């Protein structure tokens, strides 16, 4: 036993040392030597040496790997297993989905009041802003889930429809003075229209090719927004986008404002709370429609398409139309979310619609577990909430974000919630979840 444990310890150290050496090779140049335009060199580059930082980075890799070796990878009983048995297992959560959804819902509805009572109007503002942000991503994730999770079509340009929605609202409001409530459906329709236009030529593509073409389309739309100065304002964007009213009642101080009408004391938080409930409602409608469609023939056809397209065609399903409806619906919800984004910010520019946004939304869907609605909620809270949590680290945020994407995916390739619930059962009861190992991921 002792011999074994000696070897085990030495192996772990050796392995960690190898990791450390590689880290040294990787980091020595990129961290240790920083090329900087030095003063006094006439604008030429000089090198700033930072060996201390390299030592820290290498030590982190060595120590991290050693600990992982000792307690997880090579240990007889990995710590994660012990810890995992203490924590409730995520898989066992899946059947609890029917409880999780109402709990989340109640929490989401009472959240503003909880925050108000805990932090007061002034203090709760930042948390409400964060909640609005997370809910926006939940809605986007649910919209994309139709395309990627149900229909199995990999879309890397989803942000294009978000942009179309945002710009539709901003431009309609700017040129025609339309209000938010008129623009919202128009933005959704326009985005769906673009979804069909962009979707039509690409839908016969398979695999990663579809992903790349959708990425290309997303970038084309962004570059056009950036360069069509006369119409979109180019990189300056559009500012002064009208704020939403409470069905005609503005959130302004004084006579006829929201606070005045309802006999409240004026507070800027009212608008924030209203925005929060607005996006929550929009997201819930998205969820409702999606859950409903899943139990309809079109939803079943989406899932069948993900499983086997050729078999679908042999059963008389028009696969092109089926894919287009998925694309158009996903795009429409993206468009709704986009016009919400525009009215909340009051200012939009192409900056907000880069590829990274598409990647983040896709990551939320995949990390949550393809096709799982509750998974999207959890992933959005973890990714976006966690991301904001690291705000203190400022420049390290995106680095941590990228690394998290890798780590979570390696840990759970099928996402957090990975069982599929049947859309209909013969017994009439809620069916047993289907393991993700059996579910296909689609080819598009």
């Amino acid at each position: 036993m002792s011999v074994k444990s000696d070897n085990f310890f030495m192996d772990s150290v050796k392995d960690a040392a190898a990791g450390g050496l590689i880290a040294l090779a990787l980091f020595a140049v990129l961290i240790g030597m920083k090329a900087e335009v030095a003063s006094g060199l006439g604008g030429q580059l000089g090198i700033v040496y930072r060996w201390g930082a390299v030592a820290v980075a290498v030590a982190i890799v060595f120590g991290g790997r050693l600990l992982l070796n000792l307690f997880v990878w090579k240990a007889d009983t990995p710590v994660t297993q012990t810890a995992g048995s203490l924590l409730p297992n995520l898989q066992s959560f899946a059947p609890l989905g029917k409880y999780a959804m109402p709990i989340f819902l109640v929490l989401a509805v009472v959240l503003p009041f909880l925050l108000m009572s805990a932090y007061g109007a002034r203090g709760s503002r930042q948390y409400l802003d964060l909640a609005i942000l997370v809910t926006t991503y939940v809605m986007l994730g649910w919209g994309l889930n139709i395309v990627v999770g149900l229909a199995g079509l990999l879309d890397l340009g989803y942000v294009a429809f978000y942009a179309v929605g945002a710009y539709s609202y901003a431009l309609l409001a700017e040129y025609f003075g339309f209000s938010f409530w008129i623009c919202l459906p128009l933005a959704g329709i326009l985005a769906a229209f673009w979804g069909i236009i962009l979707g039509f030529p690409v839908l016969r593509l398979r695999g990663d090719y579809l992903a790349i073409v959708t990425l290309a389309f997303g970038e084309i739309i962004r570059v056009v927004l950036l360069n069509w100065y006369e119409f979109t304002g180019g990189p300056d964007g559009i500012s002064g986008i009208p704020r939403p009213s409470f069905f005609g009642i503005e959130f302004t101080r004084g006579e006829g404002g929201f606070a005045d009408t309802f006999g409240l004391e004026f507070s800027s938080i009212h608008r924030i709370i209203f925005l929060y409930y607005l996006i929550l409602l929009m997201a819930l409608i998205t969820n409702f429609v999606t859950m409903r469609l899943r139990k309809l023939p079109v939803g079943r056809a989406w899932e069948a398409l993900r499983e086997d397209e050729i078999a679908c065609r042999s059963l008389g399903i028009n696969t092109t139309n089926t894919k287009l409806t998925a694309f158009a619906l996903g795009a429409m919800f993206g468009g709704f979310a986009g016009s919400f984004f525009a009215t909340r910010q009051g200012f939009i520019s192409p900056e907000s619609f880069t590829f990274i946004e598409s990647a983040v939304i896709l990551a939320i869907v995949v990390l949550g577990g393809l096709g799982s609605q509750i998974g999207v909620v959890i992933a959005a809270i973890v990714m976006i909430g966690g991301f904001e949590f690291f705000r203190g680290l400022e420049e390290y945020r995106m680095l941590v974000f990228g690394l998290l994407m890798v780590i979570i995916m390696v840990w759970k390739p099928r996402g957090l919630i990975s069982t599929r619930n049947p859309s209909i059962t013969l017994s009439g009861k809620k069916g047993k979840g289907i393991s993700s190992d059996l579910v296909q991921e689609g080819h598009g």
Partner: protein
Amino acid sequence: MSSWDNNPVLTIEHLTMRFGGLVAVDNLSFNVGRGDITALIGPNGAGKTTVFNCVTGFYKPTEGRVVMNRSNGEHYLLERMPDFQISARAKVARTFQNIRLFGGMTLLENLMVAQHNPLMLASGYSVAGIFGLSSFRSAEREAVEKARYWLEKTALIDRADAPAADLPYGDQRRLEIARAMCSGPELLCLDEPAAGLNPKESAELNALLQYIRKEHDTSILLIEHDMSVVMEISDHVVVLDYGEKISDGTAPEVKDDPKVIAAYLGVPDEEVDAVEEEVGL
């Protein structure tokens, strides 16, 4: 003039399919009789599956016509139709040599997908469905009943709510047939339905096919290597070799055709043994 030429459900005329320089099917003509079980046999690589793919629209033939004559008097030129319409409008359903089920969906869901088009109509292209109108709900109940019927017929009812990928091989074959039947076909094309089945399952399959033909006005066209299935249930046998038809007739006629025997003996294959056994050589 044989019985299948009088009132054919499917007429194939001068069908030719070339892949580059390779001629997979060469000037093939035959009829599939209404209400018959027609078998398409031939050695490996004879072009049987290619014929199937031309009939069901997965390939567009280089030359020739494929005509579906529905019982309501409508005629469809299948070679001109997109594949999904061949099932939806011409009412031709098929199964696949390498089973293609929706593995992550339950048996019931598989059969519901097969009834996509009528359900889509009933759901008002999803609009009525979203609001849960009763017309859709009753249509859905009917669809479930139809699925239940076929699950019972194929003895899969106990596993209706289990994922299709969990079924054993033989059950998957039967489920594929049940799924094809749920789309309400007038012609059912089966690509090697008995492949990989044990003798007991094979006998059950024969009974199922006989039942479908008798009770459902569905004609059957099948590709098969298992001669016991072919000889036992088929009314009409068409033999292909190197893309050409070498024999066409009833099972006993074909069995004694010297050209057929030569074609099979020419291949060093287990099929030879099977044919030898059947024809008593």
